[in-house]
Structure formats: C-alpha cells, structure tokens
C-alpha cells in the first residue's frame, strides 16, 4: 500500500531569517530584558529555535510608560483615517510575508504548516484588514455617539494560535485609538518577534505597540500595573479568575476569553459524511488545542454506532508527524507540560470506566505527541465530560431527544461554543435559541471571520472579539444626548465629546 503513505513534502524553513536572540520590543526598538533569557523550542523535535528575552516588572513598567507616552502625544491625537492607514499597511505586510510567518508559527508552535498557511496567517491579515476600516468609522459602530478610546491596553495571549491571538487583540485596540502592551505565551513568542519587525517596516509610531516576552509572572506584572486602562486576556479559566479578582475594585475594563467544553450535537438526520468531517475538525484540528473545540460529541442514540464507526474509519487517513510536511494533519503537542495533562486526564477517563480507542499513528522518537483518541461510553458525570483536556481527545455521549440534547449541552460551567448537525432548519434554529454558548455553528464547525463576534457565556469569559461587537471592549461612549439636567449632574459624561482630545487617562486603583 505505497501511495497513501505519500512521499515527504517538506515546506522549506530556509525562507526564515531568524536571529539567535530576540529582545523585548519597547518604544519601537528591540531592547534587552532584565530577566534571564530563555529558549523557545520546536515541540516536534525539541530543538532550540532562538533565545527570547524575559521582561521583569521593571521592564513592564518601561513598556507601559512608552505606551502611555505614545498614547498621549501621538496615537490619541491622530485621525482615525491615519490610524486606519497604519493598520492597512500592517495587513499588507503580513500578506507579503505570509509564507515566512506560516513557517515560523508552525516551527515554534508545532501545528501543521497546512493550518498556518491556509488558516492562521490568512486570518491574521484579514483581522488587521477588517479593523483598519473601522478606525475612521467609530461613530457608526452603534456604540453611542462620539466613542472614545480607553488609553493603554494590557493584553496577554495564549500559545495555541500565537499570531492570530495577537491579531485579535492588537487590531481592534489600535483601530479604536488605544496603545498596547502585549505579552505572548512563553512557549510561542517567535511570530510576535517577526510581527515587531513588520511594525518597524510599517513605520508605526514608537510605543503604540510594545511586546514584553516572558513567563506567567511577566503577564501578572502587566495586568496588575496601575497605569493600564484595559486588560484583555485569553487563556485558562483558572488564570482568568485570578485576573478578574485582581481588577476588582479598579476602573480597569476587562475582557476574558477562557476555556470551553463544547458540545457538538449530531442528530439522526445530519448530513452524515459532513458531520463526520465536522466532528473531526472540531476536536482534532490544531491538535485539540482550541478553546472552542467540539470536545464532547453529543450523538443521537439511534445513530451512535454508525457515527462512531464512521469516525474511527475517518481517522485512519489522518496523518500525524512533522509539522513542516505539507501533508501533515496533526502536529505536535505544544509542550511537555501540556502532553502530561492530556495523558493524565485520558488515564482518568479510562479509570472512570469510559472505553478508549486511539488512532493508529506512528509516534516520532523526539518531540511531544498524542495520537487522536476517542472515548465512548462517556457519561455526563465523568471527569472527561466536564474538564477541558485541551488535546486531541473526544468524549462521546448520547442523547434521545432534542430537549435532552440541550440539557446535556448546557450542563457545564463553560459556554463558549456549540455545534448542531441536522438538515431540519426549524430544529436547528430552535436549538440555537436554547444553547447557552457565545458561538453556535450549524452544519459546520470552527469557522472564524474578522467580522464575526467570538466569545463565551458563563465561565468561558466575557466580551466579544471580532465584528462590530469587538470594538466595544476598547471604547467608551462619551455620553448619550441626555437632557441637560442629567448631564450636569453626571461626572464623566459632562465633558463635551471630542474623540481627538484625550481625557486624563491615568487610572489608579480605587480600592485595593
């Protein structure tokens, strides 16, 4: 059986022009950090790619000060039209360097080049393109008259879609007139560094975007800094909870995009082959490192066996291996720590009585790998039905009626996304109404678009990214056209609206 093994089709890494060591990106320049430098490795081979600087609290302070300065002196005084032009430039530069960015992301994160080339990087360019056009149209965004920027935004992003999450944070913040200090994830800082080079090529004024690399403690220092007006975090619910506690009582605005345990609901009248693709895409795309992953398959009991059978058959042509091979479907797990977590939870699943099946994939000697795994006979009471595994592990649960499907789908503290597979429009739309999830995909899964708002209910976080709604996190209305008497009595909204002129923005904590 020679053909299906496909000869190697490697994407060349020679397109990259990497430095041996990267600094922090503060005030338009690369500077050394004061913490110990650390390595970033390829999770597929465990080889070192480059050294990354570590930002201490003092470095974070310098970065915030640079963001504050550029906000006061340059960015908040600039017309929306000019801000938009910078963002259009960034979008175009990303398109120009898209192959390079895709290769770097694949190398540093472990995800397949097919994904970075066809999904991640195009979305990154599109995100900047989309928000570029909003910069001079904020009055039309439906967020009240004369919306104003907030000031300096502190942003912390995860390792699963490094450059895309960076785009989701920076594009709307800048379009709305804010400046940014952003901390990439410790294991995936490389594309953020290339992005900094792009900012230099775009001639973005110094200090508008600052990048402070480092571990969790760097992020902590950033979100607790007194002189930031806005905090945006994407990552685990545990850390999100902590950040929510830390901003309590302050006037910092906060948005969180946290974990999920999405239900992918398949009815007996689903378009079957496409549903199988949707299930596979839902949990195995990006090695399952997706907050909105369809990690629970809720299948109508009368088609359970057929669906599971077809799923297993489908997994036989999934290819796990070298992320830079163009035919690879499943890449490496991002880190040893994450691999350990996936293993532990999977063992728990077996221990609690679920039935485990693993796809037949060759595991390379080096690197962090976990073959796609399906658990059947999973009950809602099981740990693997409730805890986010964040890996290529699917838990299969059955339901009998639409009501029961809803009940089980909503029976979770999470509420990020859900999938529905049925040919019946009325049922699909009724389920949409009842699902407590911020994003619902019908007869599809894992679709993203810069114009489409994304975010969760309940412990999956609050706030939305993407679309017109995505601007809301970075703006405040400077006042409704309220009757005179009310305006005089209120505090902030009494000021005349002038989006070009910044109000005094330093936000000390009100109470600690």
């Amino acid at each position: 059986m020679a053909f299906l093994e496909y000869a190697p089709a490697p994407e060349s890494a020679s397109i990259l022009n990497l430095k041996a060591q990267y600094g922090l990106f503060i005030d338009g320049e690369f500077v050394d950090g004061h913490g110990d430098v650390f390595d970033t490795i390829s999770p597929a081979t465990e080889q070192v790619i480059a050294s990354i600087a570590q930002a201490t609290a003092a470095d974070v302070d310098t970065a915030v000060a640079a963001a504050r300065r550029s906000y006061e002196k340059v960015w908040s005084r600039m017309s929306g039209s000019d801000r938009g032009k910078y963002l259009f430039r960034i979008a175009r530069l990303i398109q120009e360097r898209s192959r390079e960015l895709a290769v770097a992301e694949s190398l540093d994160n472990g995800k397949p080049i097919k994904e970075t080339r066809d999904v991640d990087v195009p979305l990154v360019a599109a995100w900047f393109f989309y928000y570029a056009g909003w910069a001079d149209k904020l009055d039309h965004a439906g967020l009240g008259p004369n919306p104003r920027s907030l000031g300096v935004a502190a942003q912390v992003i995860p390792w699963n879609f490094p450059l895309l999450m960076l785009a989701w944070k920076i594009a709307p913040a800048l379009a709305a007139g804010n400046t940014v200090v952003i901390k990439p994830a410790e294991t995936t800082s490389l594309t953020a560094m290339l992005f900094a080079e792009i900012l230099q090529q775009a001639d973005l004024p110094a200090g508008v975007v600052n990048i402070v690399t480092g571990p969790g403690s760097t992020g902590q220092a950033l979100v607790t800094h007194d002189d930031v007006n806005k905090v945006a975090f994407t990552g685990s619910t545990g850390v999100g909870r902590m950040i929510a506690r830390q901003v309590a009582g302050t006037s910092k605005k906060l948005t969180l995009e946290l974990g999920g345990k999405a239900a992918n609901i398949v009815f007996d009248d689903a378009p079957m082959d496409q549903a199988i693709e949707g299930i596979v895409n839902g949990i195995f795309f990006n090695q399952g490192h997706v907050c909105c992953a369809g990690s629970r398959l809720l299948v109508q009991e009368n088609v359970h066996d057929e669906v599971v059978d077809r799923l297993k058959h489908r997994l036989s042509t999934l290819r796990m291996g070298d992320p830079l091979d163009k035919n690879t479907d499943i890449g490496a797990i991002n880190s040893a720590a994450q691999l350990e977590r996936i293993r532990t939870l999977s063992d728990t699943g077996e221990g609690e009585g679920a039935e485990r099946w693993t796809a037949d994939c060759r595991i390379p000697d080096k690197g962090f790998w976990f073959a796609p795994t399906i658990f059947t006979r999973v009950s809602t009471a099981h740990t693997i039905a409730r805890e986010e595994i964040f890996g290529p592990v699917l838990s299969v649960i059955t339901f009998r009626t639409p009501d029961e499907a809803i009940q089980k789908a909503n029976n979770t503290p999470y509420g990020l996304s859900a999938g529905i597979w049925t040919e019946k429009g009325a049922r699909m739309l009724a389920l949409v109404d009842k699902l407590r999830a911020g994003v619902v995909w019908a007869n599809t899964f894992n679709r993203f678009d810069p114009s489409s708002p994304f975010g969760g209910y309940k412990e999956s976080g609050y706030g939305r990214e993407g679309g017109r709604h995505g601007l809301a996190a970075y703006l405040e209305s400077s006042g409704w056209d309220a009757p005179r008497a009310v305006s005089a009595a209120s505090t902030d909204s009494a000021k005349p609206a002038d989006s070009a002129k910044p109000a005094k923005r330093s936000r000390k904590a009100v109470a600690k």
Partner: protein
Amino acid sequence: MSRLTVPKTYKLYIGGAFPRSESGRTYEVLSASGEFLANAAQASRKDARDAVVAARSAVSGWSGATAYNRGQVLYRIAELLEGRRAQFVDEIVRSEGVSAAEAGSQVDTAIDVWVWYAGWADKYAQVAGNANPVSGPYFNLSVPEPTGVVAAVAPQGVQGGSLLGFVSVIAPIVLTGNTVVVIADERAPLSAISLSEVLATSDVPGGVVNVLTGSAAEIMPWLAAHADVNALDLAGAGAIEGPKGESWVDLQLAAAETLKRVVQPVAGIPHPSIDRIGAFVETKTVWHTKSMR
C-alpha cells in the same frame, strides 16, 4: 531639441475594454487656458446601451464575491492610485489649470475617500442589517443587498473635482456589489479615463465600472428610461440642459416609469457618507420557523 512626446488616445471604458464610440464621434478636450489636450470619445446612446449590458453581466460575479474580497480589491485601487500620483497630478494641473500643490491635494483626498469607502465593504451589513425580534417562533434577519446596475453622473465642471468628484460618486456605489455606468465630467474627463486604466489593471472585474465621456444631457435620458438600470445617481446632473430645455427633473420623471431609485443632484462634490452607500441597496428580510418538536 526636446524629446517628442507620444500623446495618449483617450477612449471609453466598457466591459473592461477601451472601445471608441460606436458613433465614431470625438470632441476636443481643452485645458483651462484653452489649449488642445486630447480628443475624447463622444459617447452615443448605443455606447450607453452597451455599457448597461456590460454592467448587468458583471453584477452576479461582483455581488457574489465576498465582502472582504471586494474590500481588498478596492483597497488595492488606492495603492495603484498612490503609485500613479504624479500622472494624476499632471493631468489635473493641465485640465483644471490649478497648481501642482492643489492638484496634489485633490489626488490625496481622492485616495483617502477611496480608502474610506473600501473599508466599508465588509462592515456595511453590520450597521445596516440586523436580527428582528418578531413576536412568534421565527428567526428573522434583515440584510442589505446591492440593487444592481446604477447609472451615475459625476460632478460636472466643479473646480477641484475632475478626479475627486468622480471617485466620490463611484466608490459608494460599487462597494456593496453594484455595478455602474458613469458619465465623467464632460469638460475634464481625462482623470476619469486614467482611473479606468487603473481599474483595468486591477482585480476589479470588467463591467463593474463603465465610463462614458461626452454629454450627460444627451446620454442620461436614455439611461434614465432604460428598464435594465435599477437606480440613478444624479449627483452631477444639477445643471444639465437638454436641447428642448430638459433638466435633471425630467430624468427623475423618466426614471419614475420603472420606479428606479433616484438620488438627486448635489452642489459641488458629494461628501463621503454612509447615506450614499445605503441609497443603492435593497433590504431583504427572511423568516424561518423555529421549533424543538
């Protein structure tokens, strides 16, 4: 001895190609100080008829493209304009008799207006469309859709408007997926044809923008009455006068026969506005039942 130039021939722009007028007619385009600049094609009603055919066949492809794609294509036009800035400045200086600085300012503004409109392509639906909270078990959504083929008159004889006026009329029409047949400034048409060259080398499909040079008073009555034109933009038609004294009001009267959507003339150059986008869209509202049973 100074180098002999190679003067450009200016033709119509229809269906992505540059034909002469089928009537064979031309008219002299003079500079502000009366010097001969070029012979421009004088469009006939048959050219207008052909332009409508081209515009109609381009609707399905252009409106069927994703909004993001249209935005990208339009933004690229801005890049090309920026690259050819010197050419446009030169043409305006000769046509309008203004200084290079004034011409440069017009070109810069035209590019910025174009960018403003390009950025609306993938957002307009979010501002003009919405879900409707009807009373009953129904999903209900309203979305804007392009009206189809628009016939437009660019501002005529407006100082500082030979390029800017033209751009300000066509950009809001095409960003939502409409196609346009536009009559350029009769006395100063060269910028419009040069812009057509930019369009022809861009990713804008042929037929999305069709440019006629010549007399709006002669051509517009045919377009206003044409049953396969969906809307009229009379921005620059304010001062036109037909052989029997007809005015723009007669165009609106003719349009009434087929209930075209009509935007009345403005003085000078139309400002960038979301209203100009909305004038050329239809709103479609869809209902779908919802039930768990």
